[in-house]
């Protein structure tokens, strides 16, 4: 009964923004000519470097030096990708996966509880922590890398993957809490009250009411956090040193030194490192985009 009710409510909630958006769509009779021209130009600016990356990664090392850089390679080859894969790429990929999954998991676990507490607590102090996390958004957290380096060394975590997970998660917590809180605030209070009357405790309400209701928001922040952690460069740079522990962005930087003039191989590593996140984007684009705007728009 309860779940049926919430499901219907959820669908209603989910349907509302769309209906609203359709109604409020500004109908333009005159086309936006400057916008169209400019978008076309920007399309070129975006596409040309991306296209250059793809075709360069398919060139032979000699092919790179002759002919037009934008022409389709005369002898397209996947050898560059093989070179990258043979240079411990899989290990770096695994490291990135471990750090990202660990970081996102930790962030989501603590942020969900915190967001729930902020929305549902009666204590002033707990509700006020929202402002603390809001403040976290306003500060360039990268400025704290020196103390973090010191603490990681003192905790004997230097040069471990855990050293990357902890601060990455801590930096992701503010935005995650803020977005989840904004979504949880939209859940009608009566739902909680009626569940409470049925005798449910706060933990049960968190797991069987709050989490299912904000699942779209959870997916969104998860993808966003994953993107941030996956692409993170500064923490790996200062908190690890073993080649075994390199994550992808750091490995890319290292490939540049290793392959030096073999530009096609360097670019192949760039393309390869992007593929997993590109796949994720193709699967979860709608979630990511709609959630991002909803989260920041509030």
């Amino acid at each position, binding site marked *: 009964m309860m779940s049926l009710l919430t499901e219907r409510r959820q669908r209603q909630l989910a349907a509302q923004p769309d209906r609203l958006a359709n109604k409020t769509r500004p109908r333009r009779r005159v086309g936006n000519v400057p916008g169209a021209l400019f978008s076309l130009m920007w399309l070129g600016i975006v596409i040309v470097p991306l296209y250059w990356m793809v075709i360069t990664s398919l060139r032979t090392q000699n092919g790179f030096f002759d002919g037009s850089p934008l022409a389709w390679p005369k002898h397209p080859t996947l050898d560059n990708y093989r070179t990258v894969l043979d240079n411990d790429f899989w290990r770096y990929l695994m490291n990135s996966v471990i750090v990202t999954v660990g970081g996102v998991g930790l962030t989501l676990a603590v942020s969900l509880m915190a967001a729930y507490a902020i929305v549902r607590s009666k204590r002033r102090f707990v509700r006020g922590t929202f402002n603390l996390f809001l403040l976290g958004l306003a500060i360039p957290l990268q400025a704290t890398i*020196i103390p973090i380096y010191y603490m990681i060394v003192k905790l004997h975590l230097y040069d471990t993957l855990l050293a990357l997970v902890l601060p990455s998660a801590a930096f992701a917590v503010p935005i995650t809490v803020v977005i989840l809180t904004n979504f949880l605030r939209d859940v009608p209070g009566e739902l909680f009250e009626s569940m409470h009357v049925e005798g449910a405790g706060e933990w049960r309400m968190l797991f069987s009411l709050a989490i299912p209701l904000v699942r779209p928001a959870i997916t969104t922040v998860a993808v966003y956090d994953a993107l941030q952690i996956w692409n993170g460069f500064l923490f790996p740079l200062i908190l690890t040193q073993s080649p075994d522990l390199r994550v992808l962005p750091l490995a890319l930087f290292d490939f540049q030194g290793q392959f030096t003039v073999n530009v096609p191989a360097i670019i192949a590593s*760039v393309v390869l490192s*992007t593929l997993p996140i590109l796949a994720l984007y193709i699967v979860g684009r709608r979630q990511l985009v709609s959630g991002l705007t909803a989260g920041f728009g509030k």
Partner: protein
Amino acid sequence: MTGISASARVKRPRGGAPLLMALPALLLFGLFALLPMVFVVILSVSKWDGLGDISWAGGANWSHLWNSGVTRHALWLTAKVMIFSWVIQTPISLLLGVFLAGRQRYRALLAAVFFVPLLLSSAAVALAYRNLLDPNFGLTQSLKDGPFDLLAKDWLGNQNLVLFTVIFVISWQFVPFHSLLYQAGVRQIPATMYEAARLDGASTIQQFFFVTLPQLRYTIVTSSTLMLVGSLTYFDVVFIMTGGGPGYSTRLLPLDMYITGFQSHDFGEASAIAVVLVAAGLAISLGLVKFSGFSRMQSQTAGA
């Protein structure tokens, strides 16, 4: 209904979600973000080489910082990047966002393509551009004898150009994010406002300036805050693409902090730079929120 919830509330004197739930996030955030913030202030008046003990240094770091031409230059460069990247990115994002707000299918496809640079790590973007702009073998060099010969410059080696190259690469990466914000902002503007404007005989351009732009105030503040504070964190791109060079021409403040600390092992002075970064970030965000006035903004939409 209200009666039930009221009595339920009476039954729980303190009630609500337990503090315990907020604790893990507070601990994680406190330990790895707030505590370091306090610690960095302490380190800024200390002497530490990264290995040995930390000792009191008083104002030595700060006076050294004040007199350091390199750091002053870095501060100036950061301010320049901040202003230019805002001035360049905002109109582009605004224009693209307004255009992408239309619900035509091809615009959705366009938005999907525009988003791709945002998926690449800064390391990947910087590496790609470093090779793409290579003065000997890069793409730009091959344009020498063609209609785009204006682009055949040494974008990374010329001290007068390189800062703008950095700004361009950063814009390439982040404009999609900001146009996304503007796109969402435009879609929230009620259609009735445009209808009213049209009835009053407003042209498309007038509608943009008198309806769209004022209605986007809140989005402009959000996007600008993220952009300005964000420009205090540009590290990866310059570190990989230019290494701060040639000379000191792209040694932005975060990079200056990194080099002072992790390469010159002067962590005290590097922490002083970090304090400057935090203070600047806080001042900008609080200033923008104050300046834009949240209450005024709300009343404006309420009056609409």
